[in-house]
């Protein structure tokens, strides 16, 4: 016999009967993924150029733009503090820049409530275009023209890799909202 409503028993987030979302997983996954992404660049030994994109910042932007309303506006402070511990930047640079970025995205969202992905990518690209040189300016090193030119590859790479992060965040969001908990 054909089932009348196939989605009634299970959907993309798992079985529906007798199951529920886990509050802990739903809360922790975005933060944990950003912290891990902040820590990852440490493993790449790069002597010549800063080639690895700011993965933590990309993850933050992706969560903020792909799933608006999940991260509070002030999330840049605690997450930036963690990033500063491992990024090699002076303490406070990510706190300042990440908080500022969160406020900017909030303003963009107020102006354009309905957005397509291309628009989100454009927003992220513009923010990265400001973030990467700004991070160099506050890094404590002397800002020379050569150092500015050297940021080019990292900048291009960061902007190109954003859609990948957006997809990753979508996957993580599905994981986040899977019904892990058995009720009763």
């Amino acid at each position, binding site marked *: 016999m054909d089932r009348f409503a196939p989605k009634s028993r299970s959907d993309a987030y798992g079985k529906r009967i007798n199951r529920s979302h886990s509050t802990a997983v739903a809360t922790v996954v975005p933060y944990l993924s950003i912290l891990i992404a902040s820590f990852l660049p440490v493993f790449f030994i790069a*002597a010549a150029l800063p080639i690895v994109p700011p993965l933590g910042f990309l993850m933050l932007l992706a969560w903020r733009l792909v799933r608006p*309303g999940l991260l509070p506006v002030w999330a840049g*402070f605690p997450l930036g503090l963690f990033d500063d511990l491992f*990024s090699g930047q002076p303490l406070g640079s990510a*706190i300042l820049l990440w908080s500022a970025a969160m*406020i900017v995205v909030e303003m963009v969202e107020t102006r354009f409530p309905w957005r397509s992905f291309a628009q989100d990518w454009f927003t992220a690209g513009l923010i990265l275009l400001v973030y990467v040189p700004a991070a160099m300016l506050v890094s404590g090193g002397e800002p020379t023209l050569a150092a500015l*030119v050297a940021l080019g590859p990292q900048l291009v790479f960061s902007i190109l890799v954003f859609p990948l992060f957006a997809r990753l965040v979508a996957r993580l969001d599905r994981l986040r909202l899977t019904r892990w908990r058995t009720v009763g």
Partner: protein
Amino acid sequence: MAPTGQRRSSYSRKAQYSLFTGYIAAGAGALVGAVLLGLSLWQPGFLSGLSGTAQDAAAPVTQPVAAARTESKGFIDAVRGYYRAGSQNAALKREMELARIRLAEAAAVKQENRRLRGLLGLHESEARPVTIARLVGASAASSRRFAYLGAGRSDGVAVGMPVRSPRGVVGRILEVGNHSARVLLLTDPESVLPVRRAKDEVVAFAEGRGDGLIRIRLINLGINPLEPGDLFVTSGAGGYYQPGVAVAIATEITDDGALARIVSDPAATDYVAVLPIFEPEAVTGADTPIERELGE
């Protein structure tokens, strides 16, 4: 993406206040960040203990990854070696014979050097490394060029000690934790190192440019005697580095010196040695303000 309902905080006072508080918190967070940033730029040592502690805490993760990285690199090199094994073998044999002859000559020069030093009453001090450790990580996403070392205060590492690989200078210890240390690499824009040309006494400063190259700045300006291919070694001035360790090779001549490439790429080295400061007296002497020195 559709806008979330959260923005319209409706008539609920609680929702309105929590939204407003969020904005205030975000602004305050940015402000605190700015203050901390100013503080850590003004007094670099003040907050550096925090990141040292963080590196210590991360050591259980970074150490095994560094070990795996060096081992896998050895494997890749071994596989790559099979491609041109025959021709390379013949070339290496010829080179080896020449190198043996040069080595014998060098031994003779070393012997003579020792005899002359004995005549002058100079005693040769061979610096024993404080410790040998892996580079476990680096600041790959930041525009500063730091590396993290898998040894710290408990291994005798102290701030200012030079770090070298078998090929040449890697950098200098900038800050130490208990089991980790931060190394200022030669390519960092804040790194300055007194060098001299290997074949004569042309002295210069080697400064990091921030784009992977080293800027060689001659101290005596005039006719620029440098040529592409010149090797620069540490001069021992300043008291931090042993003299005669390879630093960089000039690739392009500029008005006041040259642009050079580093000899010892940290990404290609597996183990590095931390050496004691060459002349601690000279370093403390340079750090002492002239007024206090005159007052004593």
